[in-house]
């Protein structure tokens, strides 16, 4: 796994962005940028050569699931690994996210270990594919 990979963190709460950023840095990923919703994130993704997207679901403007769908629909971004980190934990939502092509799903509140494990799994699979 490339520790220099460029990661976009999308969450409407700056505290959560900061927590994720710190946890990622602890895991050795310090090349991160932030956006506060899907609308801000999408143009950044389209022009920024990101390697990984970590996004919340429930955000004003554009939600994380819509961002995921937009990413999958975009020719250049369609294979970008996406990790949802969200407080939503209803069966329908998780199924919807899976159908939309999410690569990992973490429910808040979460621990550093869970984040580490999911990121590891995602890139194991991406690497194998």
């Amino acid at each position, binding site marked *: 796994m490339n520790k220099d990979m460029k990661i976009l963190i999308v969450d409407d709460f*700056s505290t959560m962005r900061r927590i994720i950023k710190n946890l990622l840095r602890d895991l050795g990923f310090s090349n991160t940028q932030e956006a506060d919703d899907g609308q801000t994130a999408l143009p950044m993704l389209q022009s920024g050569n990101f390697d990984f997207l970590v996004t919340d679901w429930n955000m004003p403007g554009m939600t994380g699931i819509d961002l995921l769908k937009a990413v999958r629909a975009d020719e250049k971004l369609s294979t970008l690994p996406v990790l949802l980190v969200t407080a939503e934990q*209803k*069966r*329908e939502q998780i*199924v919807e996210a899976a159908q939309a092509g999410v690569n990992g*799903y973490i429910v808040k509140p979460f621990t550093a270990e869970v984040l580490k494990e999911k990121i590891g799994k995602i890139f194991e699979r991406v690497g194998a594919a």
Partner: protein
Amino acid sequence: MDDSSGMNEEYLEKARHIISEVESGNIEAADKLVEELSRNRDKSLFQELGKLTREFHDSLNNFKLDSKLTELTGTEIPDAKERLKHVIDVTDKAAHRTMNVVEDLLPLCEALDGQGEQIRTLWQRFMKRDMEPQEFRELCKEIEVYLEEQHQGTDRVKSGLTDILMAQDYQDITGQIISRVINLVSDLEVSLVKLIKDSGALMEDAQPESSNKKDKTALEGPQVPGLESNDALSGQDEVDDLLSSLGF
């Protein structure tokens, strides 16, 4: 009851009167009596209607006086919204204040740890007598510098920890604000229940749209203990199980 039995007496008497007038051939007088009777009936009808109108008017006025609804919706709910926004602000500030300290102190700890490790390696060599006297003198100087930095660093960690401690005062403030909003919601509930009772007949027809029609895909946010959705999963493990059943 007294009223109606009085009325009955009156009716009976008038009716007997009419019969006796008819029997004695006084049709004109009988007609007059019939007219009187019907006038009496109309009068009591209007009296009843008047009474109802007054009661309706009074209850409307009373409702206005009793009801806190106007006050609740006019000022207290907008107030509560402001208060809850304040809760977001206060918790946001506390979280950032805490993270500022952590982000400040983590590199300090790492630096001290690095220096300590370096000294430990040299110290081990010294214990194994694998060190020239000149090198040992340098080690002593390094240890002195390290002890001083360790001391200053510990001071910074202590003051940082105190700062983190103080940042937790948001719990008291937000707890009080949220309690007040809970009270407000209870007041609103009482007023609304009263409104529904007072307009009971009207409300019976207007059954609430069945709540099981709730949009299944609507976002619910964090689950609250005791109020979990039926179809919400309880944490990461169940989410992982579901995902792996979907082929993840």
